[in-house]
């Protein structure tokens, strides 16, 4: 569960970088001469979005990997899956 979460989160950040990079690159190439202010401002704002979201998701992934918080994050999920499967839950919640 933790590995899948990390893969999806990292994949979504990669898609975000690719898409922002693509849009910025395409638009900057077209309006760099006619509207340099637009390119500069959108570059700053776009970079801020990418940095903030990447930092947030990196921090979330790191928490998912940390042994001290893993049981608290995934314990209730594992417990409910065990209950759904008819097995008595054996996960100790902190």
């Amino acid at each position, binding site marked *: 569960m933790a590995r899948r*979460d990390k893969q*999806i*989160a990292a994949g*979504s*950040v990669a*898609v*975000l970088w690719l*898409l*922002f990079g*693509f*849009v910025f690159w*395409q*638009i900057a190439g*077209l*309006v760099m001469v*006619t*509207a340099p*202010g*637009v390119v500069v*401002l*959108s570059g700053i*704002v*776009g970079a*801020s*979005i990418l940095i*903030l*979201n990447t*930092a*947030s*998701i*990196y*921090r*979330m992934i790191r*928490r*998912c990997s940390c042994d001290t*918080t893993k049981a*608290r*994050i*995934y*314990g*209730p*999920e594992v417990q*409910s899956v065990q209950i759904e499967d008819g097995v008595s839950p054996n996960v100790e919640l902190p």
Partner: protein
Amino acid sequence: MADEPVTKQKISLLRVLGPRHVWGLGVGIVLVGDYMGWNYAVAKGGALAALIACWLGGLLYSCVATIDAEVTSSFATTGGQYTQAKHIVGPAMAFNVGLYLIFTYIMLAAANAIALAHLLSLVAAMADMNVGNPKLIVVLTIVSLAWLNYRGVYTTLTFNVLITAVAFAAIVALFAVAQPWSYEHLDHAGLLTDLPYGWLGVVASMYFGLWFYLGIEGSSQAAEEVRSPSRALPYGSLLGIVTLLVAANMTWYVCAGLMPWEYLGATTTPLFSAAQLVGSKPLIVLVFCGSVLAIIASATACINDASRVGFAMARDCYLPNWMCAVHPRHRTPHRAIVALVPVTMAFAIFAPLDKVITLSILSGLLVYTYMGVAIILFRRQWPVGTIRRGFVHPLHPLPAVALLVLCALGYFSIFLTYRIELILVVVFYFVATLWFHFRRYRYVRRKLQFTMPWPRPIGFEGG
């Protein structure tokens, strides 16, 4: 304690939701903004101004999502920002934030019902059919989605995840079929103009840039119904904002490359118009279905969120206490759901669409302004390490500062076009605060002001 007889078992909301439901709740409420509404930013300042507005809005909501992920995963109770305000600031702020939230979601639900009736009437007219009175569609939409919410949160939000995923897939399909890597359909070089109304047009378009993301903070309303708040809330919220950023960029890129800005700024359904211009019939059908599903997803999520805030406020007696009942079988806040139906209908039937949406966005902006201040107070009152947090947002206090600056820009943007509405909304909330202070506060359960098992906040001097 163990020897005491248990006479009455308290029925609570069910903890059955996972991260995908939180994602669906956050994205579902918003995705309709990609299908209609955002393009008025183009009318205000041209396509390039709309891109800047889209990215400024994206930064504002990235701050909202990351701050929300921390605070909501720490409190993990229903009511979201209302409950947080109750703990962090105090009763008057909590009442205001609760009211902002209820109005944001009620107005959005009303706007969605109006938009669905309009869309179905439009398509019926194209097919030489008559769908009857559009107001009947409005009423049926609100009643049927309220009924779905009444019947159970798991079914409602699983349905919401599915239809949101289809609506998102339709945007991705449009982006792929438009072939952004080639110039077969798209012509940005020929269509993109400079800023026709200068930098003031950029500021004016900011208001409509928010439509790409308005409501993502609603994902926090599921806090008391998720299995693992530490996992579901940060994961659902952060992936939700990334999904919205992806959808917003795809939408802008395809639409700006297909239509001249004068046309794009005036159409009511930009993505549907874009699909028509691409010319693929299956794509037109898919995008039409995406439009309808996005509207339904948004209305469903709005009813869910508004009822949770109403429920939480009633539980503390900020609203009449009978609203806080939980249905014994469906385990939903059924009275709060039912109580908000006539209010939503009244706005959908009697208020004009643009006024409804403006009030919704203004109420949303007031919530975000509160959030920027609240996260600074929250970190001061309970520094990292003093309480258990599900997530600690990075780069503090930069997101809070950026959020407050962008909110100020948002107010100025609204002031440029809707100054009367802005003044009326401020007056309305001021009068509501006075009413709360003088008439309602005496009923509030003061013992329930602080319900978290946390140490006393730093700087707290009350008894």
